[in-house]
């Protein structure tokens, strides 16, 4: 079974268009905009999705990510811009004319149809022969591990099972592009994590192109190969999960994706490949010069909590590199034990606060710090990101 998985066959419903090879552009979104009344839900988004990609649209609720997805599915027509699928503009095509399928947030399973008929629904519409439908449905049922439940109605299934039926139904037509609207939002945490893994594995095996919409940054980071962060109808940054986390392009993204310490300040002087930035709360910080030159004016230094080290005395300074390390003295103000890690909040002598996330690598708490203990928080210039604020 595992080796004979269905390949994406564009011919099933794409009208004979050749499916681009993996890595080739599949979907081109060009300057797409959509307004509801005076509210611009999607405001000039341009994006290219490659075949075989697992792409995530990430953003807070109301950022326009669902509207963008609905325009790809054909439920909304864009006011401006083009949507090219395999080179053909589909912006005004109706949903049933697109070789795209969608998995709905609430699954939208047909309550009057059995699991089998739900999965077969799209195949019957495509005019597939009865025997072929039976084979394809059996294939899909096996793919999402629903054997034995084919005759059940959706209301006789658990949440996780319903999610699988919805996935099988959306995959059955072998679309060129699968859209997933918050596919895991209704599942509990444990089930969500295992399903994330299964979705990724499925996507890899089928070689299909997935676009997922989510507000959960962890989910996007785990599953997607590329993430587009949306804010107020615009794409704020499109990057790999790592780049998004380690090199956020704006202060807003740094705060939206993961935890971050931010220190506002101004550029003071340049020292080789280092910048010295005078901050209000943490004194002077030495940072690596950013790739894109920063202008004068107000800046912010961002440092992720896990990159802030704590020690009782501070790092042993190597000769000549004393200035290459940022040292902040303070006392532990708050301890948050999370199992794998502990987050300490350190009240700095200079007035600010810094969060440090420390891995609990030993079972005994000999390394742990206690409240009001004097510590040194330190980090290297390379771990800092300079953001225009």
């Amino acid at each position: 079974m595992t080796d004979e998985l269905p390949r994406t066959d564009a011919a099933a419903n794409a009208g004979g268009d050749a499916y681009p090879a993996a890595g080739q552009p599949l979907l081109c979104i060009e300057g797409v905009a959509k307004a509801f009344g005076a509210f611009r839900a999607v405001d000039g988004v341009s994006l290219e999705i490659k075949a075989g990609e697992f792409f995530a649209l990430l953003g807070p609720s109301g950022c326009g990510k669902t509207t963008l997805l609905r325009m790809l599915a054909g439920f909304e027509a864009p006011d401006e811009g083009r949507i090219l699928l395999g080179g053909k503009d589909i912006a005004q095509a109706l949903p049933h004319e697109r070789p795209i399928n969608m998995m709905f947030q609430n699954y939208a399973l047909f309550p009057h149809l059995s699991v089998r008929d739900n999965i077969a629904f799209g195949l019957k519409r495509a005019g597939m022969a009865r025997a072929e439908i039976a084979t394809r449905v059996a294939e899909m049922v096996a793919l999402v591990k629903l054997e034995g439940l084919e005759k059940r109605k959706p209301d006789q299934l658990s949440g996780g099972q319903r999610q699988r039926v919805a996935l099988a139904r959306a995959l059955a037509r072998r679309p060129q592009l699968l859209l997933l609207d918050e596919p895991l939002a209704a599942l509990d945490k444990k089930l969500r994590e295992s399903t994330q893994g299964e979705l990724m594995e499925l996507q890899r095996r089928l070689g299909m192109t997935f676009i997922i919409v989510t507000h959960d940054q962890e989910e996007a980071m785990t599953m997607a190969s590329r993430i587009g962060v949306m804010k107020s109808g615009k794409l704020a940054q499109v990057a790999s999960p790592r780049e998004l986390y380690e090199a956020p392009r704006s202060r807003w993204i740094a705060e939206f994706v993961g935890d971050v310490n931010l220190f506002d300040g101004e550029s003071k002087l340049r020292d080789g490949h280092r910048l010295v930035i005078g901050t209000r709360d943490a004194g002077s910080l030495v940072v690596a010069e950013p790739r894109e030159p920063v202008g004068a004016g107000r800046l912010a230094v961002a440092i992720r909590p896990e990159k802030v080290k704590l020690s009782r005395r501070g790092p042993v300074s190597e000769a000549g590199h004393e200035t290459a390390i940022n040292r902040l003295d303070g006392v532990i103000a708050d301890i948050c034990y999370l199992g794998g890690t502990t987050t300490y909040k350190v009240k700095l002598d200079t007035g600010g606060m810094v969060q440090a996330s420390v891995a609990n690598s030993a079972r005994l708490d000999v390394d742990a710090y206690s409240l009001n203990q004097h510590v040194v928080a330190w980090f290297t210039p390379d771990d800092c990101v300079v953001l225009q604020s």
Partner: protein
Amino acid sequence: MRKVARLSRFNVASLALGLAFLYLPILILVIYSFNASRLVTVWGGWSLRWYHEFFNDRAMIEAAWMSLRVAVSSATIATLLGTLAAVALSRGERFRGRTLFSGMLYAPLVMPEVITGLSLLLLFVALNAERGFWTVTIAHTTLTMCFVAVVVQSRLGSLDRSLEEAAMDLGCDPVRAFVAVTLPLIAPAIVAGWMLAFTLSLDDLVIASFTTGPGSATLPIRIYSEVRLGVKPEINAICTLVIALIAVVIVIASLASKLSSSQGKSAAPL
């Protein structure tokens, strides 16, 4: 424990009282339809005499047949139009005058029947339409369409819109999506709407008497004119038959809905 028992005794009492209030007059009517006596209020032993009388009363049979035909055809037309109106109101784009349209659709719900009847009569006279079966049918369609629309619209409102979207996503054009997904899901409401329209039409007296013509009286009109000359026990027999008909329709409908909802469950393994 004692509190629960007292509460349930109270509930039983109130239920019995309520049911008695609703059904005692009907029960008495049914019992007296089997009365052998010529006098309505005097019990003269059991007999099927008045049923026999009714089946030999040509005028009454004709009126009953007329009522049945009017009820079936007006309920069918009203269900069709009412369903379309409900779909347009809850599914269509926000067209201009939508609020006005829905207000106008629901007006007959609260309009006194006399006004509806009179205005329809004036219309038919102005159009010089021959009054009879079709004018009553049209009038009853006007009356019952809004009831169907209310019932169907409430069902449509509780239906998830994404179901239709999913159908379109899976290859249905909007019309097929409606037929394949929405229609089966609102079918119980459509059936309920039809039955409501059927019973409303069957027992309407006011509008029918405005819009009917000579020689095409409905059963309520016929009964009413008979009663004015004095209540014959035959009327009791007719009413009992009507009650029996309605009871049968309701039992069939509830059995059908029970069957369709248990279908999925019986298919599942234990």
